[in-house]
């Protein structure tokens, strides 16, 4: 796997690069800001761009802007956005184009290397990796929304894992249940939420996201 890395902190940039190389992932280039970043991504076509959201010069959302730009120009390249703070509104931005290959994780997640690599691979494979924090907040945000109230506790758990980007099998593993049980849950969830069942994982997530997003406008 080939990645390009962008983080203004040299410590993290180097640490992450070393860690990735240790895992056999090729780090094509490292950036300490977003200057020339998008062009480099276009040129070198990595599988994933790993980018910190907050970078010079304004230390606000430069990384996010660069990631969105990459999404527009080279949709086949996955983007994994890292941040010290998770904001659902940025997650919605990233997921807005309905394409796969998106990740948005707390920076802390890199300290659990297996989960991080798992997420990275999902993004590289056109899937999604959304921080559990985002998902739980989105669910909390939509607690006041009626349709979600219809879900059972178990269905909520399944929906949360779906939203994070896990496959039915992975969900079954985590919840220690039969995969068919999970499939039943998923189908129930989508029915209860008036959504047609979709085969692909990321489309299911997007459906969830879009529904959550759309809920803002139609309370």
């Amino acid at each position, binding site marked *: 796997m080939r990645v390009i890395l962008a983080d203004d902190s040299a410590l993290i940039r180097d640490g992450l690069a070393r860690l990735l190389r240790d895992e056999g992932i090729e780090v094509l280039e490292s950036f300490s800001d977003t200057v020339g970043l998008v062009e480099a991504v276009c040129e070198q076509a990595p599988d994933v761009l790993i980018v910190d959201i907050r970078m010079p010069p304004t230390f606000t959302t430069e990384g996010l802007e660069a990631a969105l730009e990459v999404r527009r120009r080279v949709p086949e390249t996955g983007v994994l956005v890292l941040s010290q*703070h998770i904001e659902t509104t940025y997650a919605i931005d990233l997921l807005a184009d309905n394409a796969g290959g998106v990740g948005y994780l707390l920076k802390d997640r890199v300290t659990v290397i297996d989960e991080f690599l798992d997420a990275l691979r999902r993004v590289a494979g056109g899937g999604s990796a959304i921080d559990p924090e985002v998902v739980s907040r989105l669910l909390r945000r939509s607690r006041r929304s009626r349709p979600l109230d219809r879900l059972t506790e178990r269905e909520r758990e399944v929906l949360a894992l779906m939203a994070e980007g896990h496959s039915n099998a992975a969900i079954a593993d985590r919840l220690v249940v039969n995969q068919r049980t999970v499939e039943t849950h998923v189908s129930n969830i989508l029915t209860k939420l008036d959504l047609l069942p979709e085969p692909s994982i990321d489309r299911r997530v997007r459906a969830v996201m879009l529904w959550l997003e759309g809920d803002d406008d139609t309370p």
Partner: protein
Amino acid sequence: MSSPVRIREDGGVEPTGRIRFGLAIAVVVGVAAVSGAFWLGRDQQSLPVTDLLRMELGIDAGLSPVHAAMAWTFEIVSDQRALTDAEFEERLGESLQQSTTSESFRGEIDRMQEVTGPVNFIRFTNEGGDRTAALGIGTNGDLLANTIEVDALGRVAQWQLTEHYPGPRLPPWQTGLVLVVGWLFVGAAWLAGRSRRATTASWLIVGAVAAFTQVLVLSDTATFYLIGRLAPMLLVPIAVWILLDTIPAEVKRSLLPAAAIAVPITTAVALLLVDPSRIGHPRFSSLIADNPEIFRTASAGVALLTAVTMGTVAARVLRRRSVWRPLGDPAPWVVLGTATLWAAVGAIGAIDLAVGDAALSGGALPAGWLVATALVPIGSGLNTVYGRWDRADLADLVVDLKEGGGDLQPAVARALGDESLRLLRWSDDVDGLVDEAGRLMGGEMGEGRSRTHIRSGGRGVGALDHQASLLRRPERLQAVAAAVGMALQVEHLNARVTAQLEEVRASRARIVSAGDVARRRVERDLHDGAQQRLVALGLLLQRGRRLADGRVCDEVSVLLDQASTEVREALRELRDVSRGMHPALLAERGLEAAVEGLAERLPIAIDAEVTPDRLPTEVELASYYVVAEALTNVAKHSGAAAAWVTVEPRDGHVRITVNDNGQGGATMSGGSGLEGLADRVAAAGGRLEVNSPVGGGTTVEAVIPCE
């Protein structure tokens, strides 16, 4: 404020329409009184009976007025009731014996006897039957030859008895004095009106009309005559009021008790002076006429009381002379003189009545009173012209100043009657005097101009640029300057307090702003420093864990995993701290996203309606902190299941409302964080209110101005 005068173009003042109208009425009444006095006076001097007789008989030949007058005469022998024949004879006898002067009835009869021979007496009774007269007719006069003529004479006599009842009239010199007093009142009213003393002018106008009305005593008609006689009763209290208004307040206060007695007493004196019994009018005098002793005693008592009261007034004015003499105000002298004169009139009247003869006074009693009356408008006029100042002007000015505002200058110009007056204020900015437009004014003066400097609170606060002629009345100028000085001082203090308040507000806003900057810097430092290092540390630990796997003992791997967990926990805690420091999302995405972000993190259902417009940074930040602190309180203390947030900008304000369905009972004090929040909102120029009845949920409402 409606001013009783307006400024004329040339800067002088003139009375308003109300006073002018009153003056016009007084003048018309005055002219009517003068002409009436001449007309009635002429009438009085003629011989109306003879004239009427002549008209009645329609003849002139053979009956000259003198002849006619000598041919008959009459005398009222009863004005109480009809008489029997015997009583009539008895009264007639008394009348013929009573007096022997040439003008008396007896004298007339004697003359008639010389001219016309023996006189016959005929009894006449009027229609009301309460008066009987004896008509004496010369027996060999031409009149007797014709019964028709006798009848006519009878009708004349009848008319004379019923309607045309002559009484004592004003002597011409008294009539003149009455008119002079009236015109003095008119003049004083005009002066008072010109000097904006509207109330005094009004009283003087009423006084003038009352004075002129006295002329009606010349009328032969009983009703008019009585009105004329009663007019002074109205005049007396008016006169006392005007006199008291004329003297300085300090002296007046000491006189008020005396005045309270003097007014009714002098009214009584007026009644005494117009006592109907003195004119012998039976309709009004029966009681007194039948009891002359009671009348005399009572009148003497009233007169004495008048003397004492007015003497007291005079004594008081005199005793307080240390107050009014330095003022150079002539009015108290006039009051003193008038009171003394009144006291004298009262005393003389009392002695007269006690002795039972007009021994002392003769005709001087009413004259003295008239002179005393005349002193009233004279005193008032003197006060207006030479008085210390016009109290009304100063009172108006003080009211104008109290109204405040920037238009001090016209008010001062009006008070001093100088339209060209310019009010200058001391300006610390330019270290000099500036005019209303803020232009610096130098020390140079134009021709006929003068400048009066104003000090207040121990410092120069301004100056008046005015016509030099105002210096002729320095007390008035100083009084106005003192009043203006107070106003300028207040203005100055107001400006200072306002500036200080603004400075405090700005300083508070700066403190808050500095705090915000510091918090943002701390957040940034945490982000770029500790947080990044901890992540890097986590990465190192992970790499170490990878290296350790299978190569070293399992305890190392377990320890490294524990270390990783600790690092993540530290990162989580640090993240909460850093988030509380400064809401990065607010600056990036605005209030709506930031409030959503807050709501997501709290374990309660929150419905937020935030109008998505961006607001000025400090307003946005203050609004955010209101929502954040209120929601934190809801989550921590209220036990609420749900909360509602509304942020809506409206009419230059943002209204932030956070309410919940919890237990209520929240207070601003007690470290709830609401107190500090209230300070922050106040620093942004807004206000915060907490409504939290126990058991009724909590509502935090903040209104913050935003332009």
